[in-house]
């Protein structure tokens, strides 16, 4: 990696364009990104770099052949918790929480919708999550908060399961999860 903000310098001859780059190294691309969801565009433009610097979230950018931003995703850490009876369960020696990797956002440029870019981004997100989960700090699952019903359907196609009752209000999609073991098997298929 280099320290430039010029995306053309990030992909010297011979380097695979599919490689992800940290958001802090391509700030010029962030402000112009449009995925069709203002909240996802706004976060990338105004908060991603700060989250990166503070160590709150890692943002990865997918650069297209035209050197524009095809999409992005961000990862951070999270925990699945027992809501009720947690203390009682813990007293009995049962786990009260499960460490997880949180797929906080995943967005595709609006002009590329319907072309399979979201699946590529998700494959990369699973790979990065598996790397993190198999590092010194373990994680057993990948969590996501789908932005809407269409997003829930997208994740379900990759075996994410809804966590019933995790939604904070009616009309909001429940969180979903994928076991890290399943994710690792999908990553192996993507990399074959």
């Amino acid at each position, binding site marked *: 990696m280099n320290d430039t903000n010029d995306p053309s310098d990030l992909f010297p001859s011979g380097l695979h*364009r599919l490689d992800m780059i940290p958001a802090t190294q391509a700030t010029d691309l962030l402000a112009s990104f449009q995925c069709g969801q203002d909240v996802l565009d706004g976060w990338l433009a105004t908060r991603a770099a700060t989250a990166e610097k503070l160590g709150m979230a890692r943002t990865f950018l997918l650069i297209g052949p035209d050197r524009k931003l095809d999409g992005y995703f961000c990862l951070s850490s999270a925990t699945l*918790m027992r809501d009720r009876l947690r203390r009682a369960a813990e007293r009995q020696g049962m786990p009260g929480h499960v460490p997880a990797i949180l797929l906080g956002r995943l967005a595709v440029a609006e002009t590329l919708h319907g072309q399979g870019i979201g699946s590529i981004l998700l494959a990369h997100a699973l790979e990065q999550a598996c790397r993190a989960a198999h590092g010194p700090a373990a994680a057993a699952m990948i969590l996501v908060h789908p932005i809407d019903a269409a997003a829930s359907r997208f994740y379900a196609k990759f075996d994410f399961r809804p966590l019933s009752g995790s939604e904070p209000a009616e009309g909001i999609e429940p969180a979903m999860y994928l076991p890290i*073991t399943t994710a690792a098997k999908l990553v192996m298929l993507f990399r074959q």
Partner: protein
Amino acid sequence: MKQERLNLRASSATVARIDQAAAALGQDRTSFMIDAATARAEDVLTSRFDDPLVFVSDAVFDEVLAHLAQAPDPSAEAVDRIRRARLTADERYKRSQ
């Protein structure tokens, strides 16, 4: 888009404060309140994307633990989709040398 009417009650002091702020931005009261409330709603609804704690019932938690213990293989659909993603990636993001 279908429009709906909102009826609100607030103290005179609150309304005066809102009007001052709206005037400072060159907006009328309605536009200011809708903009402010919309921004707040988006903040609330999107803050969950970063929420590091997800709470579920005891029953759901135990179902998840059992699922994790199975170390499940991916479904046929997921396998198909990830393979197609690989093909799409190879096609769009060719090596540049």
